[in-house]
């Protein structure tokens, strides 16, 4: 008898290691690379009316999780130009920093896809929203209440443990309500 939850798909798959770990022969074959190099659009010159910060935070989280982010949080930053950071986390069975293949990079790609559209949406609302500013992602995610930092400075979440990838922060001046 064949039970779906006992399927041996992983053992039967001789190409799975190639998917996860084979370095790219051509970097342009990766959607993650395209997302990292994508130019950002302009901020809409007409500022839309927006809801209260609590409602906007809820909407940002709803949109990001619809687009594939597994955990979303809002942190307060200490920058005057971008007072808030929206953190999108994806579950990562394999650490994208150690698995260079397209499959290994997939958690990063899924996170970048969500941050691309959410940051574009914030810009279309008429507010600053960027993913191009370098910040300490893990630290900000911990600040957003999504988990705590371990001794290596990596994020550990209650739901997925250390098997998460913080793909990037959306820094924004959209009035939001910070978590935690």
């Amino acid at each position, binding site marked *: 008898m064949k039970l779906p939850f006992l399927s041996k*798909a992983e053992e*039967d*798959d*001789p*190409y*799975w290691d*190639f*998917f996860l770990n*084979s370095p*790219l*022969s*051509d*970097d*342009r*074959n*990766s*959607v993650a690379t*395209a997302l990292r*190099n*994508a*130019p*950002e*659009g*302009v901020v*809409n010159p007409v500022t*839309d*009316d*927006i*809801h209260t910060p609590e*409602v906007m935070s809820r*909407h940002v989280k*709803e*949109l990001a999780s*619809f*687009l*594939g982010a597994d955990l979303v949080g809002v942190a307060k930053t200490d920058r005057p130009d971008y007072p808030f950071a929206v953190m999108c986390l994806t579950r990562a069975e394999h650490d994208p920093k150690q698995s260079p*293949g*397209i*499959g290994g990079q*997939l958690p990063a*790609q*899924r996170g970048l*896809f969500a941050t*691309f*559209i959410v940051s*574009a*949406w914030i*810009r*279309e*609302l008429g507010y600053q929203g960027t993913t191009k500013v370098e910040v300490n992602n893990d630290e900000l995610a911990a600040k957003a209440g999504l988990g705590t930092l371990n001794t290596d400075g990596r994020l550990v979440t209650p739901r997925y443990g250390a098997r998460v990838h913080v793909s990037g922060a959306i820094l924004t001046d959209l009035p939001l309500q910070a978590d935690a």
Partner: protein
Amino acid sequence: MAVTLDPETQRAPEERVPAATEFPTPYLGRTVRIVDQVENVDTNEMPHPKNSRGELGLALFNWYNNTVSSDPLERVSSHNHTADKRNVFNAMMSRTPKGNPNPRRVPVDDPAAMTRHIKRVAREFGADIVGIAQAHPSFLYKGSRYVENMEVGDSHELEGAQELCRKFPYLIVLPVAWNYEMSQAHRHHIGDASYHLSTQQIHSVIGSMIGYIQELGYNVIRGAANPQAVALASGVGELGRNGMIITKKYGARIHLQDTLMTDLPLVPGKPIDIGVEDFCNVCRKCAVTCPTNSISFEGKQVFNGVEKYKIKWLTCYKLRPYVHEHWGSCLTCVAVCPYTKPTSWWRDLAVSTLSHCPIPLRPALVHALKAIDDKFWGVVPQRRVRWMGYDTGIKPGEKACTISGCTADHGEAAKAAPGNVGYYYPLKENTNRFVKRA
């Protein structure tokens, strides 16, 4: 006796291999039958290319090319209603440089193992169904590729359909399902969001799959074939009265996009039978609810050598500029289809009962299932849906919120709109402005 050589092949006429044996007429399931010579579809004669040349009138031309949406979500998910294309994922993908196949090709000893692997990888990328079909010349478009808003060029564009099918014998289609709750809000910004955001997801799936097949060292051609034909041949679903592919797990709520044609060795699937043929014979729910009466109440027609249900695409398309303020994609025929239900055991039970039922007994079963559907989901379903500040329970034109795109009442006013009925523009009373009911 002198033999006259054939001028094309330079061989004796009897040696000429007839095309019919090399590419036998494909079986596409019970809903679609190829009865005659099929002429390849010319991409220039399809609705969007026709419209971008201005052949469908000024209103449609301006809607398609010169309209910026008032809904901020549509501005980041629909490449032709946005103010800045850099804010739209698929427009960004069309401008990014394309990669090349890996010169060190991964050997494939067992196509079945590779098929399992590709299906697993596609699900990881986010595809909900994976269809693989044997390429057939009649599936291909005439001459050029069809990839919306994408400047694609490949070195095989001048090759004939048969030559392409010999070189790249497999076609892959990667549908993404729409969220059930959101697609119930047809003719509304919520339904638009589920449609347009799934477009973005599917562009990411297809982009990733092209990149991965090239990393394996094989070639991919994007947008060479008609995705509906590939979906039928590969067993993704059957063609319904509403002109949509109806699938076993999701019903009509799937988004097909560009097909991939590849030389990666795979095992093609077979057409399925989930009883769409018997259901569409009886149901007509989509034909009744279609706001433009574009769906036929009658039987199948033969068009371009294919016997199938044919929708009137022009009336479907013509409505759009007049309702642009309220929605971008109609989706009514998807939302009302009895096959479109949330993923659940009772849905699987109903579909598998129908597909295991002997064909002569099916009409009776279909009548029973249709009665259940009418009873619990309504003859004209109008469910109220709320998502991200959008609310379909507010009548069009009566919105209380000033935020662009948002139709919700907030706070006090929300109590003014009780009930579970959603309002979907055009309301039933002014449908006949657009087209007379037959």
